[in-house]
């Protein structure tokens, strides 16, 4: 129970990646301090190998990836830490 609570409520991040904006440059992969991101192998309509969260559970919501993305393809959300 405690563990489950921790998983849900630790200042955890969640990403929404706009696949059609992603150009597969890989800069976000390099910018992430927690090795969350990786190429998915899936090609978008422009033929780019788009990025996805390979280890979403490790995301802390720091938004370094989004700050780095030249195509503004990443939105970042963070869980509210319970009072």
């Amino acid at each position, binding site marked *: 129970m405690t563990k489950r609570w921790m998983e849900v409520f630790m200042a955890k*991040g*969640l990403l*929404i990646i706009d696949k*059609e*904006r992603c*150009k*597969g*440059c*890989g*800069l976000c992969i*390099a*910018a992430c301090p927690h090795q969350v991101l990786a190429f998915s192998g899936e090609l978008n309509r422009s033929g*780019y190998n788009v990025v996805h969260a390979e280890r979403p559970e490790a995301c802390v*919501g720091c*938004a*370094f990836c*989004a*700050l*780095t*993305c*030249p*195509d*503004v393809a*990443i*939105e*970042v*959300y*963070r*869980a*509210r830490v319970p009072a």
Partner: protein
Amino acid sequence: MPVSTEKMVKVFGRPASLTEARFTYCPGCHHGILTRIIAQTIDELGIVERTVGIAPVGCAVFAYLWYRCDAIQASHGRASAVATGVKRANPNLIVFAYQGDGDFASIGTAESIHAANRGENITVIFVNNQVYGMTGGEMAPTSLVGQKTTTTPDGRDPALFGYPIRFSEMIAQLDAPVYVTRQALYDTKRIMDATKAIKKAFTNQLEGKGYSLVEVLATCPTNWRMKPTEANKHVAEVVTKVFPLGDLIDRG
């Protein structure tokens, strides 16, 4: 599976001042990061209704498509002169010129220097990627000694082509400019620093302080023939040795 963000706080999203248009830049090109930073600055200062962007000739020629503010596309090198005209005609507008190194520091040299020397109350963003990106990677005045470009296939030889020009240092010699700084975007810290510098350059104009120039060392992975991550490393390890980062003048 659709994700639910109901119980979450948005910590990063697309700035409201950006349109939905997709950038025409190559993968990993720093022009995109810079465009997002400028849009975010316009959001934070709440000035989208009175901002006018001046787009250059170069890869950023379509800059007028990215922002929800008004914009003019200037002829090659003349963005600082067009910015001068707009600002003088209506000083209530917030005017920024966005110019590459070929635009700002080569064909536009005269207009760039004299706008700075007159201390026009404008904000200039100077994107130094050491090549003419749009036309296929020719040598720019900022190209490094030994840099291979399509017009210097054996590397830039100073005996034939001169040395890389430190344009911001030249402008910093003038009496009128308020703020001249050189920034970069090769890692998260530099992106945050550059964001602060750009906000300051816009704020100076809002406060009527005068001319601000933010030079940004950018990558051109396509014409440098490097992966975007290698291009970042190249800026950090090589380019900053020739073009040191930091404020050159701050009379704000």
